[in-house]
């Protein structure tokens, strides 16, 4: 347990270092390529350099960067002059509910589909389930978002997180409003994710159903549904849970695309805008947050698996 934590912390450290070097080492002067003022006068460039400590040696810069990081200082956004940390935190708060709803939905639909597909393996019912799962897994996320937009045009809100012209100021009205705006993005996320979960579940179930203890359970005279529930499912959930937890870290990719289509003001959208606007501090900040979240979820997955499988002793 301790070993895993140490590894996670080490990875975070490597990630932050990488974050730092990525922007200094890539071809093209970071400031010239990414700064919001592409045709700045030499004085302005010099001023910017000084402001971001780029006139010091790389080693000094690195230390400065680390020190600032520890103080929670991620710089100031070029676009709106606000502290990056504030923007990023706000964006994170916006992303979480949408992603949570979508993920929970995806997990429920995915596992159910996977179990059914495994149960009906060989018959058309299993093939249909598997094929639809593959299809939704294969379609580009942003395309699915656009298709849903077109399908529900006029019925559900097409962008943003809330209606700026909402008259009723009450908490319920506001929540309902956000809820309505959240429907399509969450649905898109759920559809995009569930396919992979269904396939994983199906695989794990088939693997489990072929194990000896399932034969033992059958020999004991247990009914098929009981065997699936009490023996196969419980054991199949082991790899399924880990794989799902692992995939959560990579949720960010889908989130970026979905948030962009729906202009949902979350961390993904913030990253996208940082790229478009060449907002270098924001880009660095969002990237760091996204990396740390992946590491965090990987650690979670590891711990979860160790907790669930009694064969792994600590």
């Amino acid at each position: 347990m301790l070993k895993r934590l140490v590894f996670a912390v080490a990875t975070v450290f490597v990630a932050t270092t990488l974050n730092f070097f990525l922007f200094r080492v890539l071809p093209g002067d970071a400031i010239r390529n990414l700064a919001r003022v592409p045709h700045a006068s030499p004085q302005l460039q010099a001023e910017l350099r000084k402001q971001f400590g780029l006139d010091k040696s790389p080693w000094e810069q690195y230390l400065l960067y680390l020190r600032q990081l520890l103080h929670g200082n991620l710089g100031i956004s070029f676009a709106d002059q606000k502290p990056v940390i504030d923007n990023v935190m706000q964006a994170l708060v916006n992303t979480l509910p949408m992603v949570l709803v979508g993920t929970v939905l995806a997990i429920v639909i995915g596992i159910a589909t996977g179990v059914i597909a495994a149960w009906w393996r060989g018959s058309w019912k299993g093939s249909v389930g598997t094929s639809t799962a593959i299809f939704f897994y294969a379609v580009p996320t942003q395309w699915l978002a656009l298709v849903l937009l077109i399908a529900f045009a006029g019925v559900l809100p097409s962008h943003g997180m809330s209606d700026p012209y909402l008259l009723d100021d009450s908490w319920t009205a506001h929540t309902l409003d956000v809820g309505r705006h959240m429907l399509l993005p969450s649905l898109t996320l759920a559809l995009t994710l569930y396919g992979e979960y269904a396939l994983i579940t199906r695989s794990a179930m088939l693997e489990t159903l072929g194990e000896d203890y399932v034969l033992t359970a059958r020999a004991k005279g247990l009914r098929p549904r009981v065997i699936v529930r009490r023996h196969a499912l419980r054991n199949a959930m082991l790899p399924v849970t880990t794989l799902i937890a692992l995939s959560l870290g990579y949720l960010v990719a889908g989130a970026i695309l979905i948030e962009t289509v729906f202009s949902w003001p979350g961390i993904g959208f913030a990253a996208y805008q940082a790229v478009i606007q060449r907002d270098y501090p924001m880009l660095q900040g969002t990237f760091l947050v996204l990396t740390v979240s992946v590491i965090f979820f990987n650690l979670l997955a590891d711990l979860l698996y160790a907790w669930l499988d009694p064969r792994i002793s600590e």
Partner: protein
Amino acid sequence: MSLLQVRDLNVWYSLGEGGENHAVRDLSFSLDPGQRLGLVGESGCGKTTALLALMALLPPTASVSGEVLFEGENLLNEDIARGHRWRDIALVFQGAMNAFNPVRRIEDQLIEPMLVHKSVAADAARNRARELLEMVGITASAGRRYPHELSGGMRQRAMLAMALACDPKILIADEPTTALDSMVQAQILQLVSKLSDELGLALLLVTHDLPVVSQVCSQAVVMYAGALAESGPVADLYHRPQHPYTRLLYAATPDLHDDRSVVSIPGVPPRLDHPITGCAFAPRCDVALAECTTSSPPTVQVEPGWTSACWRAGGAQ
């Protein structure tokens, strides 16, 4: 009146691309109450398939014909068989790691069939489980452990305890000692014999290990290439085998008390995806006759309770 009667059992496994393996061919034998019968043969001879067929546990790739009569009912039907599983016929697999569910405690797996079949309260079931564990020679506290925490021998005993949970009439043991070292083997065999005596259990012991059968069973059914070679009292099979395969099988078994050298049987068993003309053993037989390669041998009754599928049965081997 036989407890279990197998009549003309045939099992086919379909392979990919239309072919099929005829894994069990016209197998017939019977098991009386309290009787101890050994099903012997080399790996791949169909004995495991036969035992799976007995309890209708074959996979969807299989097809069967014939009858498996338990107290008059034909068990070759999922619904009928399920009613008898564990209650009347219980199975002990090789206590390999995976025969037990690795993420559940031993005790929970022991009480599971009791709760389902005998509708007892959980407490009563747990008590009984502890009794059973002690009966097979493990401490009752072992029940709180997970399968991987037990040694091979203990796992095998636990499997035995689990099989006895619903007081079955027949105990089928599939290679119960193969994965164990000889000391533990002997203990397990003693245990099985003792239980069979004390509880009046009929025993069907499936194994490739002849000495085991000689030790525990009174009757043996020798299988070759999915079909019956010889079936009869163990002592008679040893002293006056009526089938060359039985004779050679004994000759190939090392015996600590005997100075003779071990002779292995040359050749390999035939493929089961093509029809076999004549006797399946003929290519490897040292006393094959002309008829052996052209026509199937008859099932000869040497004496009541003793049959052999050989052209030479009843005469010199």
